């Protein structure tokens, strides 16, 4: 038996010396360990090395590089890809548990056609020929009115293929869901500095002010971001201060932790900006050269946000506001971190703009250690690119003009309310019945075939949404499929990453490329010309053709070997705006936003209180739905290793609040949404209407780690579909396809012991911030009382 020596490993990794050079800048100790830190795996008994392929994770949107380790064509382990610039060989719990998703015992491996009424859960197995025939026939029938084809997907920014398919068909109605979580941030940043999103340079900062974000449990670039934040704290002695309504993991490494009244982040940030300007701590040169406001005008506007007023509104003491503001302005470089709950309010867009302002007035914009522009390659779609049809009232709801295609919660509501005629829905890997606010209402719509005549679900799983389909096309999981990604880089060096099959598609499952290409060929009428590629590899090659550095490194072959490419000589190009300006109409940072003003909002960052919060009665509380490092929304609950850690979601209540309500730890309680929710919502049209479900039942979990006026429940559990594992049921091996069998599924214990929680999003009405269009998850007013049963 041959054992691999340390020397062999070094030889194997020598090909990537350029990569290591960049890694070691970040971590001088990375190469000091005498054992290899990653990139290889051995069999436990034979010690023989396992074969592997690099690919890219999709368990959350971060897009970490993974290694799929395979024995006898079975995936046996997922590790991190040491070459990937984001996660650098490490991998979170979700990424490692992806193997559970591949071998989910209830995975669908053959096309299914419903045998009873919609939602009756009676299915007939059909072959692909019949499935393609039926779907293509329906699509041909609605082709004369192509906009009646509605394509719903998880993340439209990633799902280029889905957009291509929809555009080629002639429909403008490709709608993505990712925006329900971050549309406000995307719109706020786009309006302000002309790029959607931001990337705090936390590895190199000295001061990070965190508003409503919880990067140690949840962040769009989770591992890649948090490892750099911890490096910043430990190697760079960065000080971290957090403001949140509840205690999070991020508090563990923060120097100072503050509770803040819900929905008041903009007040807090603006009062700090006021301190900075009135103390003369601002970067006048930057403000004068790079923003569209004058110092006196801005200072005059900010003067209303005094620290005393902010103390009353936010609950953070005025002296703390003054001290933190001064520290932020005098520590260089500094940055803010804001996503998650800062965005998820009716005033989320203003919150994000107010928080950005702190970086702008202190000159911490796109500098080393500051708040940086997102750096990513623009992956063009492959030629010939189908023309994009003119926007529809569904894809771009008129009442949310700034949000564009990023307001799925509103789009689905329009379908429910018969405000837009639908001929057919194709839901692709997306589960709105679970993920969306008021998912029950969309479920009702899906059950009504007069409203939605045909529903095709393209997914590996019987999700709550797929269960309401006419036909289910069993897609491969991300571990058997192809794609190309270029997310924003937490290292500030852009990269391109490949997703490739680490194992062949199980049984009859097919990749979305194959499905889209075959359907296009059958639908024809010009559509087939856009899928005239020899293979998915040709399609991907065409998409990367414009990136010359990658092409000269070997193009697709390089990616297949290493999983990721970035220019090894590339260094973060901080301050590149100095030559070309910002991508806004004025070329400057639009602190004063004409586009917001046109829509009737304050042009300058401002504080619009969440009206409902000022009228709360004694018993009314604010519900927060939080994300964890374990489950990612609708994606991961079929992974048993994750469910074992997080499978239920009691409601977190402060002890004072609980005592006043007569609630004890572990009591069965009912969380009821009150009519106060959505009070004062300014848009007249359909926004802020009641959700179908008014209450959820759970248990009380009493903790000091929460604001007394806030209660919180975890996201990602409480499934009523998505297979037996997600619902905490034991799975008898004999009931499972051989290829999916795992003896562990018989040991599932949490369903009987603890239950699998409840989906709190059921009681959340469709309630976007009218400016940014992002869902105000954090603005639901509830009462909590002991359940009568």
């Amino acid at each position, binding site marked *: 038996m041959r054992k691999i*020596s340390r020397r062999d490993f070094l030889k194997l990794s020598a090909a990537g010396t350029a990569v290591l050079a960049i890694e070691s800048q970040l971590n001088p100790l990375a190469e000091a*360990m005498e054992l*290899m830190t990653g990139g290889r795996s051995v069999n436990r008994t034979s010690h023989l090395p396992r074969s592997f392929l690099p690919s890219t994770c999709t368990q959350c949107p971060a897009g970490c590089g993974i290694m799929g380790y395979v024995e006898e064509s079975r995936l046996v382990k997922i590790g991190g890809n040491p070459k990937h610039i984001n996660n650098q060989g490490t991998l*979170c*719990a979700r990424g490692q*548990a992806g193997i559970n998703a591949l071998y989910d015992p209830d995975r669908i491996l053959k096309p299914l056609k419903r045998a009873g009424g919609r939602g009756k859960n009676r299915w007939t197995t059909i072959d692909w020929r019949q499935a393609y025939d039926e779907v293509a026939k329906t699509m041909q029938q609605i082709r004369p009115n192509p906009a009646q084809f509605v394509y719903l997907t998880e993340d439209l920014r990633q799902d280029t293929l889905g957009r291509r398919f929809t555009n080629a068909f002639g429909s403008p109605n490709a709608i993505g869901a990712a925006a329900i979580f971050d549309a406000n941030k995307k719109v706020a940043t786009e309006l302000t500095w002309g790029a959607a999103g931001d990337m705090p340079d936390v590895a190199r900062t000295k001061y990070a002010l965190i508003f409503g974000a919880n990067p140690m449990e949840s962040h769009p670039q989770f591992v890649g971001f948090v490892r750099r934040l911890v490096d910043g704290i430990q190697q760079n002695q960065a000080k971290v201060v957090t403001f949140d309504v509840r205690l999070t993991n991020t508090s563990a490494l923060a120097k100072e932790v503050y509770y803040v009244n819900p929905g008041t982040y903009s007040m807090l940030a603006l009062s700090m900006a006021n301190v900075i300007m009135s103390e003369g701590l601002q970067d006048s040169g930057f403000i004068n050269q790079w923003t569209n406001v004058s110092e006196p005008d801005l200072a005059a506007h900010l003067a209303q946000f005094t620290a005393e007023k902010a103390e009353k509104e936010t609950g953070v003491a005025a002296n703390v506001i003054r001290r933190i503001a001064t520290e932020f302005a005098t520590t260089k470089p500094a940055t803010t971190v804001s996503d998650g709950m800062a965005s998820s309010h009716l005033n989320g867009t203003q919150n994000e703009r107010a928080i950005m302002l702190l970086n702008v007035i202190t000159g911490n914009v796109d500098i080393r250690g500051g708040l940086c522009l997102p750096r990513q390659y623009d992956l063009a779609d492959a030629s010939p690119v189908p023309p994009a049809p003119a926007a529809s009232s569904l894809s771009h709801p008129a009442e949310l003009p700034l949000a564009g295609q990023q307001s799925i919660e509103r789009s689905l509501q329009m379908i429910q309310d018969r405000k837009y005629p639908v001929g057919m829905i194709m839901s692709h890997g997306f589960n709105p019945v679970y993920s969306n606010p008021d998912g029950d209402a969309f479920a009702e719509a899906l059950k009504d075939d007069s409203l939605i005549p045909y529903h095709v679900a393209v997914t590996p799983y019987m999700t709550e949404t797929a269960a309401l389909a006419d036909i289910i096309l069993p897609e491969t999981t991300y571990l058997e499929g192809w794609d190309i990604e270029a997310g924003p880089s937490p290292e500030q060096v852009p990269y391109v990453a490949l997703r490739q099959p680490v194992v062949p598609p199980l049984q009859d499952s097919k990749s979305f490329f194959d499905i889209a290409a075959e359907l296009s060929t059958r639908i024809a009428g010009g559509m087939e010309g856009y899928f005239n590629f020899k293979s998915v590899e040709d399609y991907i090659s065409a998409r990367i053709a414009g990136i010359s550095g990658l092409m000269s490194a070997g193009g697709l072959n390089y990616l297949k070997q290493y999983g990721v490419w970035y220019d090894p000589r590339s260094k973060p190009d901080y301050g590149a705006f100095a030559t070309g300006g910002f991508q806004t109409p004025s070329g400057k940072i639009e602190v004063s936003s004409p586009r917001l003003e046109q829509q009737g909002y304050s042009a300058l960052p401002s504080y619009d209180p969440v009206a409902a919060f000022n009228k709360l009665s004694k018993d009314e509380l604010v519900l927060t739905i939080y994300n964890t*490092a374990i489950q990612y929304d609708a994606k991961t609950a079929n992974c048993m290793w994750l469910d074992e850690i997080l499978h239920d979601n009691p409601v977190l209540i402060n002890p004072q609040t609980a005592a006043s309500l007569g609630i004890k730890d572990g009591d069965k309680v009912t969380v009821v949404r009150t009519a106060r929710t959505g009070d004062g919502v300014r848009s007249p049209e359909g926004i802020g209407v009641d959700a179908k479900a008014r209450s959820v039942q759970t248990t009380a979990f009493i903790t*000091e*780690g929460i604001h007394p006026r806030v209660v919180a429940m975890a996201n990602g559990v409480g499934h009523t579909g998505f297979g037996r594992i997600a619902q905490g049921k034991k799975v008898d091996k004999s009931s499972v396809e051989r290829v999916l069998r795992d003896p*562990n599924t018989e040991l599932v214990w949490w369903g009987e012991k603890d239950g699998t929680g409840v989906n709190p999003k059921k009681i959340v009405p469709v309630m976007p911030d009218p400016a940014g269009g992002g869902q105000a998850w954090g603005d639901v007013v509830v009462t909590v009382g002991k359940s009568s049963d």
Partner: protein
Amino acid sequence: MAKKRYAMLIDMRRCIGCHACTVACKAENAVPLEVNATWLKIIEKGIYPNTRRYFLPRMCNNCTDAICARNCPTQATYKRDDGIVVVDQHRCIGCKYCIASCPYDVRFINPLKNIVQKCYFCVHRVDSGLVPACVESCPTRAMIFGDKNDSKSEIAQMLATNATEVLKQEMETDPQVFYIAADETVMSNVEKKINYRAESSLIKLRL
């Protein structure tokens, strides 16, 4: 050159409580549901608004003076020359003496195989020149593993330059899992039978 002595160092100034180590261990060592060889303890301390979370990744300490090895009637549990305490699955008779004698509550019966198991620092990986799976996975590099007798190793340097603690020093077992900056409350009460099931990432353990 001195004999190898493998040890683990966990730097709580870097731990974010993400459970990557928990799942890495499950995957690497085919640890069944119901039981864990590596897990994460999470507590919250304080009274609102002065509150904070603390974490503690837990695993076998691979003690120099391993009581379990001393008490094993069949020598199924034994200590290797490099200090790693392992269980020979073929010799284990499932008598559970070792479980009863472990002061750290790290041993368990594998429900699928009916033998005793625990963390053995991923010996199969270490013997192949790789760090344990939890160390590889750790997103923030809070875990360091290596030969503490090799003065050039990262762990030896870290041990030499940082104050460290071990669990239950008073047991005089000389644990080989060291912690930097762990909270004293989260370090205490390890003798309490803490069912890891109760430690779902919500903080069900309040001390």
